[in-house]
């Protein structure tokens, strides 16, 4: 079947294309991008809208296996499709964690059967994510992991991290660091500062992140590995990464939409939907993150989509889990935070969500919108406004700081492999 996307603005950050054109899709591939294509095909009028390569999320928690009440591969990838994503990288902190060949096989098989978009598995660095013994990185890589990470916790032992880096280098696989000194952050609930003092909650100093960012950059220099720093949240981390890049180290980094948009004051009133790790920081940090993104110190945006049930979030702040549900609100939040505020151009923003993460993954099949590439396409309507209610979410969980708020600019059509995986029925009935 042929699909024609007619009259939209085609933005392909990889080739810097940014013009009004039609896109013809045939047999899962992009056949042609040109003006006024006339052909018999299922046609979507996307005039006034933007067509971009399907978005890529380097950091998603799909919760399966073991957390099926919060999210499954099926529901998580449906939420991703609605959010405009066609590829997500699944973090291995499931129950049991993806720390073995069997775990990776489960993830791959279930994703193939029940996933609505592409799921790329990430394997754990250490067995049971305990930070002690290395996993079978070579075997897991052979069957399909794209990175290793103990995300959710740090590999606290520097020697173990060094070995993991040296070893992973042989397989040309990226190592994703969740940078947190667990001793410094112990008992911590939110950023350490006046807000934690007022609320009587224990603080997590920015140094808990910065010390580990510095350590892992240092170890990357020692080992020559490909290091990717997850969810950067502080101004000083940006300075450390900037320096590492200046020294031509193989270091990349990501930032989440919530760290770009929110600060510690959003937690006031004990809002557990803003309880996240690393914590929301100060306005000064938030500005530094935006500048870092602009300057290229931060390579890409990743959601750190972390679904949690109401019953777990709706309780004492100290006892509620960390995490924000992020896939479905990423685009409107980023459009508001970065585009409306004129920090980035649309092409620059989309670059951080398409070709930039594809390059980090060294994956040439995704993140491009060109003739011959895979037809993973997201159509965004910048003008549509929605009030975010619980019913808005296709994710099984509703733990979003945006519930009750109005957001503007949403993906309205998502194609994965040339097939429509999500469409806004109000616009495309």
């Amino acid at each position, binding site marked *: 079947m042929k699909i024609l996307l007619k009259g939209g603005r085609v933005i392909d950050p990889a080739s810097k294309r940014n013009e009004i054109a039609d896109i013809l899709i045939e047999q899962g591939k992009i056949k042609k991008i040109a003006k006024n294509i006339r052909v018999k095909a299922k046609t979507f009028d996307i005039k006034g809208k933007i067509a971009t390569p399907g978005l890529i999320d380097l950091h998603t928690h799909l919760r399966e296996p073991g957390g099926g009440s919060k999210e499954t591969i099926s529901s998580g990838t449906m939420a991703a499709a609605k959010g405009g994503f066609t590829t997500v990288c699944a973090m291995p902190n499931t129950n049991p964690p993806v720390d073995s060949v069997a775990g990776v096989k489960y993830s791959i098989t279930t994703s193939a059967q029940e996933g609505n978009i592409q799921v790329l598995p990430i394997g754990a660095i250490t067995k049971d994510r305990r930070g002690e013994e290395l996993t079978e990185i070579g075997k897991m890589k052979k069957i399909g992991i794209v990175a290793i990470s103990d995300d959710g916790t740090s590999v606290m032992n520097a020697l173990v991290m060094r070995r993991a880096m040296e070893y992973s280098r042989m397989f040309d696989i990226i190592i994703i660091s969740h940078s947190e000194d667990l001793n410094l952050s112990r008992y911590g609930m939110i950023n350490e500062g006046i807000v*934690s003092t007022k*609320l009587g909650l224990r603080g997590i100093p920015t140094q808990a992140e910065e010390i580990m960012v510095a350590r892992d950059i240092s170890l990357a220099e020692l080992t020559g590995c490909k290091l990717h720093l997850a969810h950067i949240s502080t101004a000083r981390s940006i300075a450390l990464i900037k320096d590492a890049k200046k020294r031509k180290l193989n270091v990349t980094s990501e930032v989440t939409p919530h760290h770009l948009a929110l600060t510690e004051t959003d937690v006031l009133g004990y809002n557990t939907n803003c309880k996240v790790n690393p914590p929301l920081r100060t306005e000064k940090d938030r500005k530094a993150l935006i500048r870092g993104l602009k300057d290229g110190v931060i390579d890409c945006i990743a959601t750190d989509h972390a679904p949690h049930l109401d019953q777990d979030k709706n309780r004492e*702040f100290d006892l509620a889990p960390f995490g924000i549900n992020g896939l479905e609100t990423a685009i409107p939040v980023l459009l508001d935070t970065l585009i409306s505020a004129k920090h980035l151009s649309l092409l620059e923003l989309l670059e951080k969500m398409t070709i930039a993460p594809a390059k980090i993954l060294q994956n040439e099949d995704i993140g491009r919108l060109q003739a011959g590439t895979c037809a993973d396409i997201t159509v965004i309507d910048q003008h549509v406004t929605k009030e975010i209610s619980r019913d808005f979410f296709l994710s099984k969980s509703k733990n979003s700081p945006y519930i009750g708020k109005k957001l503007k600019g949403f993906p309205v059509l998502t194609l994965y492999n040339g097939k429509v995986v999500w469409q806004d029925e109000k616009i495309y009935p």
Partner: protein
Amino acid sequence: MEFKRKDLLGLENLSKAEIELILKTAKPMKDLFTRTVKKTPALRGKTVVNLFYEPSTRTRVSFELAAKRLSADTINITANASSVVKGESLLDTAKTIESLGADVVIMRHPHSGAPHLISRYITSSVINAGDGTHEHPTQGLLDLFTIKEKKGTISGLKVGIAGDILHSRVARSNIWGLKKLGAEVYIIAPATLIPANIEDLGVKISYKLDETIKKLDVINILRIQKERQKDQLFPSLGEYSAVFGVNNEKLKSGKKDLMVMHPGPMNRGVEISATVADSTQSVINEQVTNGVAIRMAVLFLLSGGDHENIA
């Protein structure tokens, strides 16, 4: 002036006028204590529930007595004796208590923000009787009442708060209340027990009790918990006591009328010496008495009582 709040969760959000109204209302409540019949029918027919998730004698008994002197029906629930041990969530427990017809729920909880959480979900008034390391508003109010009663005014006084500020809900409520009423507040504690950016609340920090004590009109000494030593917050109780404990020698170096307060329970010989606790400058027992009056005032005002009309 009317008191228009449903809940009393902390002093941070109360205005100066609201605090003064509570203090003013507590005065006639205290006058009742010297009568033969120490009771008023103000809360007759109302149900007051003490929901305590932490061991407490002083505060729970004080609230219970306050409610009884106002003729309310009182029920005490302690966490280990209830469905909490069966794994019931805080919200479910709170909704059950609301459904049983509680007009006021007084809650003590080990986690900061717990009363704020339930107050959003139930129509009963919620009084925070101490939440984690956040606030203990009625303790703050009774401390203000005691200072005002003894010193005549709060504005312009130099008040020191000495001890574990990091973990202290009493310290936070005192700081908010004292600052709103115009006192100059000194935090006297080891650097490890001072929370981040506390100077943004308008307080001065001191690590030298022996110097700072000379300036003070009032010193409020907080209990130091022995467990904190395990977290490396100070090396030993002995060292703490030597540097930050208030003993007779330090007391004598201060002003003649330096008033000594302690929210209790005391560790005699650690943060406060027995001589200081029992000295004529100590108002520790009066704090306890005033606590009942303040809690009566709070219960009365939250139940819609008009302070001009106390029976």
